[in-house]
């Protein structure tokens, strides 16, 4: 390179380009995310949802089982939003706002626990299949095919019916549905990485297979799993609400759950639609937040992907 070559000057003047400046994938992704309006909206919704879940007892004007308006409610009249009860009352005279806010806790717990259960179990299964290959891989993947043959919600319904009506069984059921998804994803991603040139180079250096897989292949295979994890949180929240809607959630009616709140108020559709609208909107906002964030993450981590 001669002194007259303008390239170094251009490099200094222009914002650092990934390949030239050698930014890591993580930092590059972060840079893209910060500029993406979809990511920002998603992040704000997710943060709001998490904050509400944690601060529900502080934010909510009443407890989830308090009945401040029990004298105002009659079978034919359920008061809607007012200055005292911003989202109105429910059919038992409980403050709807307080119930919706407390419901966020339940949704967050179910979403996160079932995601962790599905992602960790699925990734372990995928890791075993992807590392061993051959017959073990084949056997595991056929098992996953069997699980995928049953539509997710039906699988969860069957499992929840088997495990009994409780929150734990909802979390296990929703989580199990995602096991084959994560297993296939990690396995596929690992197979691609294992046949990459760098893996061949490392192997030819005499590095042990375990080291190759755990230190090189696995970390490089994780980004689709992270993206899927974020998107799965959205479906987990929706699926858990669906199970609650079908009456398969916990047995304590005092605990507010968005899906069940919707189911319980079906009878009041014409007289008190707010009872269905507010928990429904809460589910949509929470699911939308994770969907938007997941989509932006996908785009940020894989520059070849276009929304």
């Amino acid at each position, binding site marked *: 390179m001669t002194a007259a070559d303008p390239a170094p000057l251009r490099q200094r003047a222009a914002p650092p380009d990934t390949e030239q400046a050698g930014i890591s994938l993580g930092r590059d992704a972060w840079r893209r995310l910060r500029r993406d309006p979809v990511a920002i909206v998603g992040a704000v919704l997710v943060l709001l949802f998490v904050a509400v879940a944690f601060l529900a007892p502080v934010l909510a004007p009443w407890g989830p089982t308090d009945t401040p308006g029990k004298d105002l409610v009659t079978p034919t009249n359920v008061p809607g939003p007012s200055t005292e009860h911003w989202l109105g009352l429910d059919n038992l005279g409980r403050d709807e706002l307080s119930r919706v806010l407390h419901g966020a806790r339940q949704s967050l717990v179910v979403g996160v626990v079932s995601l962790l259960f599905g992602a960790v179990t699925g990734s372990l299964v995928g890791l075993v299949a992807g590392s061993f290959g051959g017959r073990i891989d084949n056997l595991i993947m056929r098992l996953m095919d069997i699980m995928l043959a049953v539509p997710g919600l039906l699988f969860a319904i069957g499992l929840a019916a*088997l495990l009994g009506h409780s929150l734990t069984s909802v979390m296990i059921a929703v989580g199990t549905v995602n096991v084959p998804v994560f297993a296939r994803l990690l396995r596929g991603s690992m197979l691609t990485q294992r046949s990459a040139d760098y893996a061949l180079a490392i192997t030819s250096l005499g590095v042990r297979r375990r080291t190759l897989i755990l230190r090189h292949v696995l970390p490089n295979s994780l980004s689709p799993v992270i993206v899927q994890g974020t998107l799965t949180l959205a479906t987990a929240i929706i699926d858990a609400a669906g199970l609650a809607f079908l009456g398969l959630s916990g047995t304590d009616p005092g605990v507010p759950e968005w899906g069940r709140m919707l189911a319980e108020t079906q009878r009041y559709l014409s007289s008190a639609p707010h009872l269905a609208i507010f928990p429904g909107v809460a589910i949509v906002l929470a699911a939308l937040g994770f969907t938007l964030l997941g989509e932006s993450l996908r785009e940020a981590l894989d520059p070849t992907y276009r929304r």
Partner: protein
Amino acid sequence: MRRLAQLVPILLGLSLLLFFWVRSLPGGPAAALLGERATPERVAQINRIYGLDRPVWEQYLDFLGRAARLDFGVSRMTERPVTEELVSRFPATAELAVVAILFAVGLGVPLGYLAARRHLTWIDNLSVAGSLIGVAIPVFFLGFLLKYLFAVQLGWLPPDGRQSPRLFVDHPTGFYVLDGLLRGDPASSWDALRHLILPGIALGTIPLAIITRITRAAVLDVLHKDYVRTAEAKGLTRAVVNRRHVLRNALLPVLTVTGLQVGLLLSGAVLTETVFAFPGVGSFLVDAIAARDYAVIQGFILVIAVIVVTVNLLVDLGYGLVDPRVRLR
């Protein structure tokens, strides 16, 4: 043929899973069948009648044989054979699923195409935003909103059921829209169709979002291919380029994705039918869950899985028909 052979282990595995599912239920199948009436004597009696005291592998083979003959036992709720119950309710769900998929494909493909052709314009942005929101709305909530708006508030469409109560007509096929036409009674077909619109839209919205997105991505991908540029450079009209080059290639992934929606539609039908009190297999399953009618749940899941696996196989085969490259492989 090889693809067909791959189905066998999946279905066998599934039958094994469902067989052990009923056997792992609290108290076993006899208690599940008897419910609250279970006493040790009655459980022993049921075990003897249904051969539950025999070796497990023998029971499994027996179950498999009956399942192959579509015999899933008797429903505890209605005391009628499960298969009979499913068959009588299946047309309702099938009609609903057809309306939903027509809505999703009929709107999703043109919308996705338009979004790709008008890339980065307001139409494109709107379709992307719509498809992101579409997958975030639970089908039961959307059903609720549609019912409230168009049935309760505006009164344009019926809020629930399959036909208006004043219409008492017999249904030879069970497909109400078809039955009306067969009888030469278009008014009752129209009535049945009106009942399908709201639940069909509710059920079809998630597939709509997915199909719009896939069509958009596929068309965008094809539009930048060299052969499209060549076709345009040859002076072909846009309509010919679209028909022969863009759509033919772009619709392949759309076909696959549409096939994959069948599972989603059938499980979504469970929730949609509940919201709209629609008497199909989905709402029957919900009743079965509440009544712990495990024979129904078992039969239902097995039938749905067979449908899903078969449709996926058909899509794979259809792929070979429309794309010569796949056939050659």
